[in-house]
């Protein structure tokens, strides 16, 4: 029996879970089964974005969730176009978008721009970041960058089977605490950990109080001051923007895409409450 996933921000306070919802889970566990909807989700309640470094098994996770058979190969950069599909879990329909694999969101290539725009302006209900358990250190910068944008994140620590074979173990509880979002160990090729992943997705999708975007501390007083200063002004200009510090940082670096969003005012849309579709 897997321990319940620690989920900061959605603490198990009694009024958080309506009694009815819980009772129905307990009475009808089959309703929480996965139904793969392939290409045509039709009506959907939540949008899930699938991000991650190249060649971490994003497409495999995508296929496992949607029942589609998108071509999977052991090489970086084979998912070129953005793939979309759907699945339903626990009576809720999800639309899932497979983003191109990127190492960062610093906007140095078209792929990174696509991924960044979907994550920032598409405002998915859940971002699943697929991470290679055998190369955690190289995968974490992307996780941290996504965490700076949003708290609606689930980390799928994929390829744990390979990690096991290589004698690598990752402490998911510790990682969960560090990142402030659920971390689920998966081996998508063998459908290992998928039930736990689905549960975590459902939970993040339905929470009204996601973790705050991560505040990374830069060990440079001048930079810290500038970020704080500009973030305050971003918030003054666009009240309610959840990730003002990240926006400020991007503006300080002269990110053309974000500058454009400021100019056109699209950045302000991030402040409006998300609609439960």
């Amino acid at each position, binding site marked *: 029996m897997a321990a319940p996933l620690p989920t900061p921000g959605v603490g198990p306070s009694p009024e958080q879970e309506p009694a009815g919802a819980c009772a129905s889970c307990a009475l009808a566990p089959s309703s929480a089964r996965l139904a793969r909807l392939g290409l045509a989700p039709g009506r959907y309640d939540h949008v899930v974005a699938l991000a991650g470094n*190249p*060649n971490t098994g994003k497409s495999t996770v995508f296929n496992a969730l949607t029942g589609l*058979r998108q*071509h999977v*190969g*052991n*090489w*970086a*950069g*084979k998912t*070129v*176009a953005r793939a979309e599909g759907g699945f339903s879990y626990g009576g809720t329909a999800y639309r899932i978008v497979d983003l191109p694999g990127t190492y*960062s969101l*610093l906007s140095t290539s*078209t*792929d990174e721009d696509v991924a960044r725009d979907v994550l920032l302006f598409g405002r998915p209900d859940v971002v699943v970041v697929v991470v290679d358990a*055998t190369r*955690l*250190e*190289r995968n*974490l*910068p992307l*996780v*941290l*960058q996504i965490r700076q944008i949003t708290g609606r994140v689930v980390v799928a620590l994929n390829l744990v089977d*390979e990690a096991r*074979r*290589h*004698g*690598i*173990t*990752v*402490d*998911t509880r*510790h990682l969960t605490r*560090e*990142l402030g979002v659920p971390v689920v160990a998966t081996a998508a*090729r063998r459908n290992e950990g998928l039930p736990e992943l689905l549960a975590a997705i459902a939970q993040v999708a339905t929470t009204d109080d996601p973790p705050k975007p991560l505040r*990374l*501390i*830069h*060990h*440079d007083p*001048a*930079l810290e001051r*500038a970020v704080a200063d*500009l973030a305050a*002004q*971003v918030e003054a*200009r666009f009240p309610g923007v959840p990730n003002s510090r990240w926006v*400020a*940082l991007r*503006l*300080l*670096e*002269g990110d053309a895409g974000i*500058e454009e969003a*400021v*100019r056109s*005012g699209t950045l302000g849309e991030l402040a409006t409450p998300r609609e439960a579709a």
Partner: protein
Amino acid sequence: MTDLLDEAARLRRGLSDDVGDRVVESLYTDAARIAGTSVDRDDARARLTVDRALDRVLTHRVWGFVAMGVLFFGVFWFTIAGAAVPSDLLYVLLVENGHAWLRGIFDAVGSPWWLTGLLVDGVYLATAWVVAVMLPPMAIFFPLFTLLEDFGYLPRVAFNLDRLFARSGAHGKQALTMMMGYGCNAAGVTATRIIDSRRERLIAIITNNFSICNGRWPTLILMGTIFVGAVVPPALAGFVAAGSVVAVVIVGIGVTLAVSWSLSRTVLRGESSVYSLELPPYRPPQIWRTLYTSIIDRTLKVLRRALVMAAPAGAVIWLIGNVHLGDASVAAHLVTALSPLGWVIGLNGVILLAYLVAVPANEIIIPTIVMLTLTLGANTLGAAPGVMLELGDDAQIGTVLVTAGGWTLLTAVNLMLFTLLHNPCSTTVLTIWHETRSVRWTTLATLLPLGLGFAVCALTAGVARLLGWA
């Protein structure tokens, strides 16, 4: 809203120039700290050394290429050796018995001769041929190729070829799109989206056709088996046949590099970009899953496409073979008209007509050639026009092509070269147009390979005739 940008610019001036580096640095410091406290590795070293040892051979400057040759040779040899028996079985079942049986039914219900001809001798026969010729090699080749891909070998090929591509002024990622092209050129052309520079992307699109696609492997394998393999003792036939296919692949890579080089020196001038290629870990391939997906997804998909194309092509072949203008059929007129050109490039009128009929899909070239040869050459063999001869196996296909079609080794070798060098199929042409949105580049991508094909085949034919080989 621009005051916010001005403010950002003002604050930026107050910072050192390397803000970006500082930000990235703190990201990586945090990542390293978190990874350091979450990851526990005991005997990770041992595994990594296996990967490293493999890489030392497979990406070696010399041995890397040797290993590449041996692996691809092995894949083709397996395909050729393994496909022979099932191919013959399918042939007897579908083409010989199935055709006779279906014809019997049509005769029994009193169908008019032209209907029987169109549906049974045209549509059915063409589709039956496609299944018999294509299914076995595809069912063996695709899983083997996918296993190599699953294992993590393809990025190593890209790594090996990277230097060559960079030297020819192209993007290193072109090696990856080329690999995709070995499955399907349309997919390969779409895959060039991973290349950011437009110049390098166009080079990759134009040269993708030099990767032999699904539809063309069976032609090469069949030609290699029945003509090239036949000139050596039977014991060596399989090796020589596989070797001839590998040789065509190598010629294809050579042409890709040469054309990339000339394009980047002429119409698409520019520097080649730098990029980083991640070599993934070697992963034990999932054999059953690979077998399943490559048979269901690739083999059946390609086969379905071939069948959809073969059915109308079969009707066209029967019609041009049986509709007469004056004293000869339409096909005969066309073949006569195309024959001089065919002779010059060491092929013949039937092959060129087949390439016209098969523009929608390369898959149906061989069946089209055989059916046209039989329809037109039937008189010389004493059979009634439009009636299929009994062909037992690959060797008999060869006999028919030699006796009724007048083929020589030169015809087969040139057909193999022409298979590599001719216009892309209509799907690929359409994809190129979609990706480039340019009539000019699409035309170039279509005609350049065709022109090269004519030139190379004319050259080999000329040399072979000069030296008295043909």
